[in-house]
């Protein structure tokens, strides 16, 4: 086989098709047609489609490479501390991502998981998130522990009234008198995206397997 060029070529082709067909095509056959889940009781389907602003925000998230430090996949309650950290009551399942143009599962948790950021018990509101993106300082602390994304903001002269999108910064970070820091379009879409990250609906396949649970239909928790 190693001497016969044609057989060698066929071998290479087979090796490629084996791996590609097995992993890429195999999983596509299994999940490619995964549909939203229709809940009879609520009369609507889950997951909900993301809003336009949030979809654009996902592109900002992708472009800035946020996934190099943040995952968006909650693991089972009995595997790791994801539930204890408040990242989600249930594990993420494939159905959560079907409407996402560019799912950002990520491979690194230098920062916290964000799959359920808006659904947590103590979520940050939009103003806090916006300010965090600007300062890189987690609300309530004093340490710089995130890159400040100042380039997503504009510094402007206050012309008449203060802009509705202006940041309310502490004195140490505030701009000179008569000037304001205003969130740019990308900062606003990114915050809209982060605030849309929420997986409230419990799909049947997301329930932990326990003998007593009847896994027939999904429900809000």
């Amino acid at each position, binding site marked *: 086989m190693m001497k016969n060029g044609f057989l060698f070529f066929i071998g290479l082709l087979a090796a490629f098709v084996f791996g590609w067909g097995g992993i890429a095509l195999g*999983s596509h056959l299994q999940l490619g047609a995964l549909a939203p889940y229709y809940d009879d009781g609520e009369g609507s389907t889950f997951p909900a489609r993301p809003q336009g602003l949030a979809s654009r925000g996902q592109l900002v998230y992708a472009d800035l490479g946020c996934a190099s430090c943040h995952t968006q996949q909650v693991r089972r309650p009995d595997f790791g501390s994801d539930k204890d950290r408040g990242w989600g009551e249930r594990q993420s399942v494939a159905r959560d991502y079907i409407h996402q143009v560019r799912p950002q599962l990520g491979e690194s948790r230098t920062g916290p998981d964000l799959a359920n950021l808006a659904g947590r018990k103590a979520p940050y509101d939009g103003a806090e998130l916006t300010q965090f993106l600007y300062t890189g300082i987690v609300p309530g602390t004093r340490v710089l522990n995130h890159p400040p994304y100042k380039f997503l903001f504009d510094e402007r002269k206050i012309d008449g009234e203060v802009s509705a999108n202006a940041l309310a910064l502490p004195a140490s970070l505030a701009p000179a008198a008569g000037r304001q820091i205003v969130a740019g379009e990308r900062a606003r879409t990114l915050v809209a995206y982060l605030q849309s990250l929420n997986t409230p609906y419990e799909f049947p396949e997301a329930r932990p397997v326990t003998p007593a649970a009847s896994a027939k239909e999904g429900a809000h928790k």
Partner: protein
Amino acid sequence: MSSPSTTAEVTAADTAGRWPLLLLLASGLVWLVLSGVLALIASIQLHSPGFLADCESLTHGRVTALAETTFIYGWAANTGLGVALWVLGRLGGAPLRALNWAVVGTLFWNTGLSLGLVGIATGDATSFALLEMPRYVQPLLVAAYVAIGVSGILAWNGRRTDGTFASQWYAVAALILFPWLLIAAQTMLLWSPVRGVLQAVVNGWYVQSAFSLWLAPLALAGAYYVVPKATGRTLPSYDFASLSFWTLLFVGALTGGRHLIGGPVPAWIPTLANASCTMLLFHYAVVALNLRGAFSGGGTALRFISFGLVAYLLGAVLDAVTAFRGVALVTQFTYFATAQQQLALYGGISMFLFGSLYFAVPRLTGRAWASAALVRGHLALAMFGVLLLVVTLAAAGWTQGHDLNHAATSFADIAAHTRPWLLGATAAQASLLLGNLLLLVNFAISVSSVCCSAPAENSFRQPSTMEAHAS
């Protein structure tokens, strides 16, 4: 070095291929230094988030992508192709043909890569690991790669020997398989994206295939050629080499799912990866048996290759161990995974490539390396850098993994606990960058001397003088 049984060190194939191959190798080295600068910036940002934070093009997410892309598609691809073509030319027994295609391909490859990097820096990154370059440069990259590969395939088809060698199999596999991989991956991820989590599955398959079906074969093509040449002995246990080759090609790509343990994907994907990682150890064991002669030989090339061999094997064992759920519970999503990646790519692949480079360049130029001191400096800094980088990142990752599993530990505390290790990793990146600068300078002086002076006659017959001694 005590066994210089090789004669006729510079062959007709070398003289004919000199400039096209040196162009590939030179491109690789320039990208290597650039990727070192970018990796250093990314490393500093991990412990000092404010570093260059106002520079949008160098924000952490982008600079990480830039460093990875330059390293793989700049350094490893150019150098690996240079080595693969050189090996195929020499073993084919005739000067390489269609080298003008290779030159044009090299120029287009590097142009495409440069455009891709500008794309990443200005906001067009795709966010897929190892496929960060925007889709508008991807077809160009495929075409350029094929153009470079033509020479190698012609040399393989027109070979004048009856038998074939392991280094030829690996080189040809890398030349043929990579365009298929890149086409399949960009079709399923960039042109007609699959839905939802399937993107992560396909991305994982591509990342692993790029390693197992492209980078590892490129590196092994060089190592399987240089070790017997430099030691003057045939490879032991050579009968197993073909089985090992096919094991890597068939099983390698299946191991990619180990990064998806516990994720929202079908459970068979990580489970298959777990089993495949263990199966793949057969390939690594045979490579170790085949190339073990590298440890007994002297000379720069063999020192790099023996270091690479240890790292390549250790990387495989760590992959197999961390593919188990119990271990992944700590190491997944941490710097430990980065340490494994660096061990495989820097410790394994790059060290093999360095070894082949140190062996090939004097034979392409017909002259010894310009400075033995620079060679020694590079060897020391590279080995120290890789060791320090892998150890510090692994320690940081282990700490981080345990902290993450302890829900009461805040992220500020985790950052404080890992900070000393991350400072060490930055020192390691600096050491690697400095070492690679020495190599680039030495390469530039050695190659420029070809135009300016006649070759020293004795270097042809004394292989030991061609590879500056490292001891």
